[in-house]
C-alpha cells in the first residue's frame, strides 16, 4: 500500500494531465491560427459548439465517434465564418471572436433546451478509456500515464505533430512565413489566403475537439456554458507558451497542475480561502510571463489583414 502523501501526489499529477487537455486542444488550435497570422478569439464559442454537438451526436446515435465528428464539423464551420470575416472582410478579429462566443453560447443553450425540459437529460455515450492491460497496474506510473482516454494521448500526439510540421517541413515553413511576412510569402509562391483559411478552419476543429473532450470523456451531460471560460484561458496559454507547441503544452500543464493543486489543498482542508487557491493558476501565469527572459514574440503579421496586390 502506498503512503497517503504518495496517493495525493499521484492523484494530483493525474488530474493535472486531465485538466490540461480541455485547454490544450483549443490552445493548439489558436496557435495554428496565430502562426498563420490570424487571431482566433472565438475559441470559447467553438469549444462550446463542439461540446454540445458532441453530446448531441453521441446520445442520439449511441456512438461517441459520430458525436465527435458532428462537433468537429460545427467547429470547422465556425472557423470558416471566422476565416471569412477576418481574411476577406478584414474586420476586427477580436470583436468577431466575441460575437462568435456570444452566438455559440446562445445557440448551444437554445438547442439544449429544445431537447426538452425533463428531470433527467439524456446521457451521451462516453468514449471508453484506453485499455493498457498490465501497464495500467504498475503502481504510480500506471495511474499517471496509462489511465486516460484516447483523446488525451491524441492531444499530446498533436503537439508532436504540430512541432514537427512547423519546424521540420517545408509546408510548415511556408505556413509560418504566411504569418511572419505574407508579402514575401506570396512572392515566393505561397498562397497566403488559402493557407490562412486552412489554418483558421483547423483551429476551429481543434477547439471543438476540446469541447467534445468535455462531453465525451469527462461528463456525459451537457450543461449551458459547460466550457466556463476555458476557451479564453486558452488564449493566454498560447502567449504564455511563446507561440510554440511545446511551450503551449507546458503552459496548459501549468494551468492544469495549479487547478488540480487547488483541489488537493481543499481536500487536505488546510483552511485557506478557496478564492485565493483558485487564483493560483492566474498569478502563476503572470509570474511565468515575467520570469521568462525577454519578450514573447508573436508572429509579426498577426492580426493584420493581408491585402493582395
Amino acid at each position: 500500500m502506498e503512503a497517503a502523501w504518495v496517493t495525493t501526489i499521484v492523484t494530483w499529477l493525474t488530474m493535472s494531465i486531465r485538466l490540461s487537455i480541455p485547454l490544450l486542444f483549443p490552445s493548439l488550435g489558436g496557435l495554428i491560427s496565430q502562426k498563420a497570422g490570424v487571431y482566433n478569439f472565438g475559441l470559447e464559442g467553438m469549444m462550446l459548439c463542439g461540446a454540445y454537438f458532441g453530446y448531441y451526436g453521441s446520445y442520439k446515435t449511441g456512438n461517441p465517434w459520430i458525436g465527435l465528428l458532428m462537433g468537429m464539423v460545427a467547429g470547422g464551420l465556425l472557423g470558416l465564418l471566422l476565416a471569412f470575416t477576418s481574411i476577406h472582410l478584414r474586420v476586427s478579429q477580436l470583436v468577431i471572436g466575441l460575437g462568435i462566443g456570444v452566438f455559440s453560447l446562445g445557440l448551444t443553450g437554445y438547442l439544449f433546451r429544445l431537447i426538452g425540459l425533463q428531470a433527467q437529460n439524456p446521457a451521451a455515450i462516453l468514449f471508453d478509456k484506453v485499455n493498457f492491460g498490465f501497464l495500467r497496474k504498475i503502481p504510480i506510473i500506471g495511474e499517471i500515464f496509462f489511465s486516460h482516454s484516447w483523446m488525451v494521448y491524441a492531444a499530446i500526439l498533436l503537439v508532436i505533430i504540430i512541432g514537427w510540421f512547423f519546424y521540420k517541413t517545408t509546408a510548415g515553413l511556408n505556413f509560418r512565413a504566411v504569418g511572419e511576412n505574407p508579402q514575401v510569402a506570396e512572392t515566393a509562391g505561397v498562397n497566403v489566403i488559402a493557407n490562412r483559411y486552412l489554418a483558421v478552419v483547423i483551429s476551429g476543429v481543434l477547439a471543438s475537439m476540446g469541447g467534445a473532450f468535455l462531453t465525451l470523456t469527462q461528463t456525459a451531460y451537457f450543461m449551458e456554458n459547460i466550457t466556463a471560460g476555458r476557451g479564453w484561458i486558452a488564449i493566454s496559454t498560447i502567449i504564455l507558451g511563446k507561440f510554440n507547441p511545446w511551450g503551449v503544452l507546458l503552459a496548459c500543464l501549468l494551468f492544469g497542475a495549479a487547478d488540480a493543486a487547488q483541489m488537493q489543498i481543499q481536500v487536505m482542508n488546510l483552511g485557506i480561502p478557496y478564492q485565493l487557491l483558485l487564483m493560483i493558476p492566474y498569478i502563476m501565469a503572470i509570474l511565468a510571463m515575467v520570469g521568462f527572459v525577454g519578450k514573447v514574440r508573436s508572429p509579426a503579421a498577426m492580426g493584420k489583414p493581408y491585402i493582395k496586390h
Partner: protein
Amino acid sequence: MSELTTPNALSIPIKDRVLQFARNNMGIVSTLISIFAIILALFIGGILIALAGINPWEAVTYLIKGSFGNRYGFGETLTRFVPLLFSSLSFAIAHKSGFFNVGAEGQLLMGAVGGVLVGAYVTGLNPVLHVILCILSGVLFGAIWAGIAGLLKIFLGADELINTMMLNYVALLLVDFLIQGPLKSPDSYLFVSATILPSAKLPIILSKTPLHLGFIISLVVTAAVFYLVYRTPIGFQMRTVGANRKAASYAGINIVWATIIALITTGGLAGMGGALELMGAQFKIVNGFSAGYGYDGIGVAVMGRYNPIGIILATLLFAVIRVGMGAMQRGAGVPFPLLNVIQGLIIVFVIASGYLTNKLSETVIGGRA
C-alpha cells in the same frame, strides 16, 4: 475626382449621384450601413423567434419599447450605458496609446471596491465631498490595478494582453473573497458588501427611472478624455508612442512617462465606471456586480472606431440591446439563449458591415472613413 458642377441634375447618372452623396456624407452612410446590419440580424433573429412559436413583430416591439419606448426602460438603458461607456473608453485610450488593455472588467471591479471603501466606511462628510472622494478612490483603485500589468510591461517587457486578462480573473476572485470576509456587510448574512452611505449615493436625474447623475458625468468625462488625447501635449505624446515607439523616442518623448499617464487614464476610467455604477445604481458590491461590462466595452470601442461619437453610439446600441433583450423575454417569452443568439448575430453583422463601409469609403474617398 470631378467636382459637382453640372447645372442640369437630370443628366447625372444615378450611380454618380449616389457616389457623390456618399463622398460628402460618409458619416451618415456608415451609420446607415450599421443600422441595416442590425436590422438584418434582427430579421434573422425574427425567423428564429418565429420558429420558436413566438410572433417576431411582437418580440421586436418589446425590444424597442422596453429599451426606450417607455420612461423606465429609457432610463434603464441610459443607466446601463454608464459603466459600458467607461470600459470602452478605457480600451480605446489604451489602444490609442499602443497597448491592449483587456482588463477593464477587473479594473471596474476594483474601482467599485475603492468606491465602497470610501462610500461605506467614511462617515460625516457632506454629499458633494463624499461623492468626489468616492470617485477619486475608484479612479485610484482602477489605475493601480491597470498599473500592475502596465509596470510589468514597462520594466519587464511582459505582454500586457495576457496580464490584464489574468488580472480580471484575479480581481473577480479577490472581490469574491472580500465580500465574504473583510468587506462583508454587517447587516446581511448573505455574501454582499456593506451598502454605501446615503451621502455617497448619486442623485436620480430622471424621476421614476434608475437614471442617475453618472450619466451626465460619463458624457463630460468622455469629452474631457478626448480633449486630453487630441488637444494636449501629453495626449499627443501618448498617441505618438502608440503609433510608433521608435519614432516617439527619437522625437524625444519620454516613453515611460507617456505610458504611465496612459495607464492611469485607462485604468482610472474603468475604475471610475465601476465606482459610478456602485454609487448610482447598485450601492453595494454583489457577485455579478459587473454584467460583462468590461468585455462588451472592447466590442463597443472597436465598433465605435475609437472616436468619441462612434463610441457613444455603439455604447447606446449595446445598452439598448441589453435592456431590450430582457424586455423581449418578459413581454414575448423569448427564451434567454435565443436572445444570446440574436445578440451574437448583431455583433457579427455590425462588425462585418464595417467591411462594406470600408470598401465604400475606399472607392469613394480613396481612404478609410
